[in-house]
């Protein structure tokens, strides 16, 4: 599903020097995989995730998503592809503070020009699926961290993406809440969603089937998880 070849990301420094964040990244991820990217701080994990999520455009190399050569796409085409195929879960949840749970779930659909009645049906299904119907009129500040992240995951998958990217999804949660989220991921993966997560936690990495270790921007090793 994902093929990365010779991906590099660097920032220019003074005197024509460069600071490399990612170097010569070559990764293949098959459909239905649950991959965890690990490594110490500054290893380039989040940078790699943002390249996969097409939030970052300043890289070089080749990136294929399915049959599409992302590296040949213009920014607008990448945004369309992202909207169609990718969902994102953030460590800080990044729910919109001024919107209710219902509105937070609705917003990705409105950006994809789904009509109002269809939006209502999909949001209602999702609220039901994640068992948060009772919270639909609450604002993020009225939810616990775990509940906020459940809404974050629900929002990420509401437009039915093929690929779910998660950046330290349990980083701000208690262990029990983290477990709940990881089980949710496991279930989504079992239902066919490809997942790539960045994590520091060996335990969370264990929920996936492959681990990619990064250090100083290089892939150190790849191994199967559990």
């Amino acid at each position: 599903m994902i093929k990365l070849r010779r991906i590099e990301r660097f920032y220019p420094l003074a005197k024509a020097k460069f600071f490399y964040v990612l170097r010569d990244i070559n990764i293949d991820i098959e459909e239905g995989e649950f991959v965890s990217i690990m490594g110490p701080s500054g290893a380039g994990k989040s940078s790699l995730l943002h390249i996969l999520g097409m939030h970052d455009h300043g890289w070089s190399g080749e990136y294929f998503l399915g049959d599409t050569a992302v590296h040949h796409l213009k920014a607008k085409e990448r945004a369309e592809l992202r909207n169609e195929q990718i969902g994102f879960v953030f460590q800080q949840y990044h729910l919109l503070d001024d919107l209710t749970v219902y509105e937070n779930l609705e917003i990705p659909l409105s950006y994809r020009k789904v009509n109002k009645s269809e939006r209502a049906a999909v949001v209602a299904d999702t609220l039901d699926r994640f068992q948060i119907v009772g919270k639909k009129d609450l604002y993020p500040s009225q939810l616990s961290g775990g509940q906020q992240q459940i809404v974050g995951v629900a929002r990420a998958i509401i437009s039915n993406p093929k690929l779910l990217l998660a950046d330290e999804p349990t980083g701000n949660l208690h262990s029990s809440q983290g477990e709940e989220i990881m089980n949710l991921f496991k279930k989504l993966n079992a239902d066919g969603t490809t997942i790539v997560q960045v994590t520091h936690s060996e335990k969370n990495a264990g929920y996936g089937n492959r681990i990619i270790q990064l250090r100083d921007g290089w892939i150190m090793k790849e191994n199967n998880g559990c």
Partner: protein
Amino acid sequence: MVADLKFAFRQLRKSPGFTLAAILMLGVGIGINVAIYSVINSVLLSELPYPEPDRLVAISETIGDSTWPTSYPDYLDWKTAQHSFDDVAVSRRDDFNLTGNGEPERFSGLFVTASYFRVLKVSPKVGRTFFDEEDSAPGVNPIILSEHLWRSRFAADPTIVGRKLVLNTISCEVVGVASENLSIIRNPETARNSQGTRNVDLYAPFGFYANRPYMHDRSSRLGFYGIARLKAGVSIEQAAADLKVIARNLELKYPDSNTNVGIAVSSLHDSVIGQYRSMLWLLETAVALVLLITCANIANLLLVRTAVRKKEIAVRAALGASWGRLVRQLLTESVVLAFLGGVLGCLLAFWSKDLIASLSPHDLPRLQEIRLDLPVFAFGALITLGASLLFGLGPAWKLSKAELNAVSKSVGDSHPHRSLSALIIGQVAFACVLLTGAGLLTRTFRALESEPLGFKPNHLLMVGIKLPGLKYHEPSDQAKFYEELLEKVERLPGVKAAAIDDDVPFGGFRSQEHFAVTGQPQSRYGEEPSAEAHCISPDYFRTMGIPPLRGRSFRRDDVLGKPLVIMIDEELARKFFPGRDPIGQQLNQRISETDTSRTHYTIVGIVPSVKHGEVGIEPKIPQIYWPAAQFSWLQTTLLVRTEGEPTTLLPSIRTAIRSIDPQLPIFGTRTMEEAVAASLGTQRLSATLIGGFSILALFLAALGLYGVLAYSVTQRTREIGIRIALGSPRSGIYGLIVRRAMMMVGLGIFAGVALAIGCGPLIRHFVYGVAPYDPATIISVAALLTAIAILACLLPARRATLVDPIQALRSE
């Protein structure tokens, strides 16, 4: 879109302080623009309220470069010979004393031809207009009341038609009531009525005048002004060409009176409001600058908020919002904000309608038409939308570029955004332009106010008197009345001196007379020099406080039958008698077209040049004084020099007049100081309004600077903390903040001064007694802006010095 609106309202509710401040600023900015535009729309842009108004023109005659009224015989010839107009009409201002119906009262009147109503295509509100035969025969002495007189004096009596009124001792019959919109068209010489406006109170046909010599004398250009309606498809240029041929034929046929006399035609709309056009656009420019500064201020506030909202926008982008969608949402917020400001602005403009009308010069035509109607609200909506784009687009653009990746890693800008600095520079520059304009206009006003008048305006009372022609037909009757009046008034306790002048000082119109110097080659008719003319009583100069320079003043024996004498001013003496003593020399005048002989007047005295009309504006015109007792004058101004407050003497002066003629109304009573002040009304209005707007601009610019600096201090807390921890003294921190502010303000002042100098040619004809690039004004403005900017920096700078380094570093 509904979701965007809902979210926009939610955002505004979330920051009530910002929302309130922005709405208030926008309300004031939009409000003053709408208010001034309502005046421009009603006075300048709206068509005259008559059918097919673009076909209406004003016609006058020209002699050399100057515009003159026409003569009645010339008008009759135009009317017959022209091919360009559906109809032509003429009017002449004269005033009426209404007696026999309670207190005698004086009204502003306009004599018009019957065609006047046809040209304007107005129907009377009640009754009829005049018949053509009433142009030449008095008939029943018909009169038509203006609507406001009918309502105010006769309580809108529906049976007014047929009512007999005694006007100027003649019994007249009311034949109709003119609709209110007729009063917009005024004769250039129309006097102020009792309300202080130049609106006409009543209309009379020329039949009243049928036997007056000037109705038949082609050279008597005594206040007749023409209007006409162009034929369909005929342009003003074609009409002008037609009239040019007529003028040429009249010149050939009547060389004595019409040599060098042309006929000028212009749009009636321009002739009614033309002189106010530039002042009104100047005011609109000033308020537009205030709105620009307001927009810059709100853009500043929005930019400051971008730091807070970057994450939200980045998340939206990460969730799939396109760039256009984000900009739309952010602009929706700006539009909602501007809409609320616009609503407040329109309300403020509506509430300030009466204030604007009262501030406007009373001479301003169509003042009563000022209203907030659909075009004004459309303008309000347009500038509201424009403002929202102006202040919203920049921040929306900037914010829509926020990327989650960058946001999550940003540690805050160490300096205010470049765009914030640019906006501050722009605000300061615009404020500088406005302040310079206000400074120049204020200095102009002060220069005019302090300009020497040539006489002492304090303790001087003016009272208008109009003798009815029938009763005071003979000059000897008039002379007797004036003599008796002056005797009685001079005897009143508290009166130092009294005199009469046929002119109304600072009344907005000055009569001029052609003359020639006896013994020098005579110029052709129309090319003779002219002088401001005054018929005065012997004590005039003592009453006015004008010290004669040479020769003698008029005496009580300078009367009819005695040698004709005049006094001249020093300007006339300098111009026409260089190196010679004018005393004993003579000036002469041709009395009428048919009279080829000339009347000679001996110069007996020279006086200083005196301002009788608008202060400062007029070119220097020579002045000639005639003794009133040698002429016939029905309308005059009684001038009374008093020991104390002039108006306290009004009742006893009224009694003195009534004791001579109980049927005589008095009018136009005001002190000379009031008259002088009123003549500066337009300048005062411009200086006051633009001064007010520039203070508002200064306040807004200071507020903007304060906001940006306060934000900058917050953003730089860590840096300031490190500096303090490294040993920077508090003064160093002060300097850090103030230096940055002064750099922005300095650039703003530089740009503003350059702009103000660039605008110099535009403001040139608004200033008097001061150069449009007056260095003193520019330096004062720069100093004021710098001082205000320093004040605006003090609080943020002080806050910066109080940063606790440990706290600041821990917070990072």
